[in-house]
């Protein structure tokens, strides 16, 4: 709930580092380890290889979507449409594969294209009419969901083997190609953010859009491409989702935007823009996933699940905050 960093904010900054130091992640990793330890203590079966592979194969969609969301938030925007866009994408994918019998590659391309288009629309409307991205993407959330219902005639479609083994665990390691791809996307995202010119502009725009404009750079194309990217990744999330479920459900991804934003913010990205790291967002995703899986495994009751989840999310962020210098603390109080 803070304005962009002020001159008074003299804490450490993404700018100073190329790829961020491992130290940055200690706080979140501590939380993660704590959670795993906790659940291992509570359930005899939790601490097993299969638990972790299952977990890993479950999160690719959320992961890639969180990557896109990180960039959007750092650019001081927000993308509420990711869940619906993912659903729309998967619906199209299923249609193309099952109804039209198109080759996998083409179907996937279609799915990605849908996501990209939705993202471009978000970005374009946002900059063209200077509408808050919250509203634009909220609109897209509804529209894309409607689209998903249309395409799928509101029925989930079984795709089965038609998706190949993208979502299936690989023989020895037990991890799915989807997961490995997702991890690659995470690193690509981190590199984009901290190593490329586009990334620097994203940070700059998120910090002080006016300053960027005044210094002679047009922020709009950057903003558009960020939303486009987020849309594209939502599409990719759709592909992974279908691959994992072997079917496409027009209702999938409801409320996904909240989980994604939560993961990203747990990862320390500021909703006010200008500050954040993709890798941290990934840690955020892991924390949420472990929490869900763990609670299910120990068979917690629904109320318990809710209350614990809520408490842990807040605790995680507080704990992580203690890692930060007083420098940042100062501007908060």
């Amino acid at each position, binding site marked *: 709930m803070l304005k962009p960093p002020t*001159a008074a904010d003299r804490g450490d900054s993404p*700018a100073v580092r190329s790829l961020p130091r491992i130290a940055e992640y200690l706080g979140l990793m501590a939380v993660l380890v704590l959670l795993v330890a906790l659940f291992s203590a509570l359930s005899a079966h939790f601490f097993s290889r299969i638990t972790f592979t299952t977990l890993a194969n479950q999160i690719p969609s959320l992961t890639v979507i969180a990557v896109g969301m990180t960039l959007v938030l750092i650019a001081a925007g927000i993308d509420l449409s990711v869940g619906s866009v993912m659903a729309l994408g998967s619906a199209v994918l299923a249609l193309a594969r099952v109804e039209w019998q198109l080759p996998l590659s083409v179907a996937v391309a279609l799915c990605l294209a849908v996501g990209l288009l939705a993202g471009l629309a978000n970005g374009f409307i946002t900059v063209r009419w200077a509408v808050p991205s919250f509203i634009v993407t909220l609109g897209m959330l509804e529209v894309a969901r409607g689209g998903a219902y249309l395409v799928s005639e509101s029925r989930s479609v079984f795709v089965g083997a038609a998706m190949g083994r993208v979502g299936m665990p690989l023989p020895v390691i037990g991890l799915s190609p989807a997961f490995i791809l997702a991890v690659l996307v995470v690193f690509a995202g981190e590199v984009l953010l901290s190593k490329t010119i586009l990334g620097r502009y994203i940070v700059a725009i998120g910090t*002080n859009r006016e300053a960027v404009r005044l210094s002679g750079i047009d922020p709009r194309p950057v903003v558009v491409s960020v939303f486009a990217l987020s849309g594209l990744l939502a599409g990719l999330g759709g592909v992974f989702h279908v691959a994992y479920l072997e079917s496409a459900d027009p209702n999938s991804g409801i409320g996904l935007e909240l989980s994604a934003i939560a993961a990203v913010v747990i990862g320390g990205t500021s909703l006010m823009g200008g500050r954040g790291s993709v890798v941290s967002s990934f840690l955020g995703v892991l924390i949420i996933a472990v929490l869900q899986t763990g609670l299910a495994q120990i068979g917690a009751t629904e109320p318990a699940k809710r209350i614990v989840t809520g408490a842990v999310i807040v605790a995680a962020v507080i704990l992580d905050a203690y890692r930060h210098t007083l420098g940042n603390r100062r501007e908060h109080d």
Partner: protein
Amino acid sequence: MAIANVAEPLPLLRVRGVEKRYAAPVLTDLDLDLRGGEIHALMGANGAGKSTLSRIVCGLTTPDRGTMSLGGEPYQPHSRRAAQRAGVQLVMQELNLVPTLSVAENLFLTDLPGRFGFVAVAALLARAVEALTALGLNELDPRTAVSRLGIGQQQLVALAAALAHPCRVLVLDEPTAALTSAEIELAFAHLRRLRAAGTAILYISHRLEEIRQISDRITVLRDGRVVATQPAADAALDEIVRLMVGERAVGALDQRDHSPGDVALRVEGLTRGKRLRNVSFEVRKGEILGLAGLVGSGRTETVRAIFGADRTHAGRVSRGPGPPLTIAGPKDAVRAGIGMIPEDRKEQALLLSQPVRMNMTLAVLPAFVRRRWWIDDARELRAANELRLRLDVRSHSLNQRAGELSGGNQQKVVIARWLLRECDVLLFDEPTRGIDVAAKIAVYRVLNELAARGKALVVVSSELAELMALCDRIAVMSAGRLVTTFARGEWSEDAIVAAAFSEYAGRGDTARRGRVDSC
């Protein structure tokens, strides 16, 4: 690239009949000629239209009427980028750096060196170091985040950014407002080199002695009209001032009797990392203490620490003989009767998107409240209006957004905020930054008056002349230490500058870089 057409006879930049109005007319039928190889000073009272003109020249604002030509060809920059391509660079009055990016990235934001979209870090740092050294900033690590810099250092970075890009026309809008003579000397050396290379420089400043030093010609602006253009050589400063402010009497600073009462503020062993080392001093009732020092010497850190704006590691602050205060935050400070005017009006003082009146009364709102809750609009308005007149704030209404005011007028609003609040100790950090000559006198009067009323004042300023005119004593800071304090009469400009450098001498650059890297 621009350097090609150096010695042009006819003016390099020609402005004809430019007009601009917002709520009220700002520029009317304005003509201006800028020759290659000249430094052309643009002067005028706050709100005269200087920044607006420079924004127009640099494509940030489109004039309602009028034409411009650059090197003969018609010139209508539709964006800052276009202006830059045409070889027109600008240092804006309001700093527009990106705090989360490094100094290097800010220096070359518009043209980050890269390969296949990747930032070429090595090249970037190299160019950055070069640009910084040119302004004597060789001690500043280009990888530091700008959010760590004091306002003065930020101003130097902004200046360096403009100077690092070759250009035909360079517009500098109060580039030195927070710089001390030391940094200014280096800057000027650089400007003279550019002039020699045939660059046309439009130089905006409220510091008369600078104008005399550097400018070839002077154009005076009043209420958006050019009232005079003349060679700097045969320009009498008081004449120029009269042209600027018109009939508004400037007058001299009336003498205040310098016989301070007993101690009002005692600071002992103030320490904050390597940036503030064991700073101790006293201020007495009715006394004005000046804080001099180089940019980054810790003056701001000191006042912020006293005010509780930052957490300090060690040190005691007490009101006179009283027990040490526990100041957890600015609120406690204010309760203890200490007020502060921060150095960075945009980030730390103003509510840019809110009306002037709201900005003026923020700190004293409870005084305009009926029955604990209700704001008494009428009384608030009256108070705000009195302040506006007292400090001569130029705004066409008290409901104009503070962000729409000219820089100097914004600064006046910031000062106004603390005049209503009856604090016994007031800390002013660069109080006259960007304020015009006449208004400065007005501010000095206010300060004197406050002192006369028995308040204790600490004034941080980069303008030595100002301190020497105002203060009873001047404390000099160097590398986070308070090295000496001069009493009125004892001081001389050279002595003060020498003291300001003392702590850096010998330990050289490394010391200062150390401070920047710390924490």
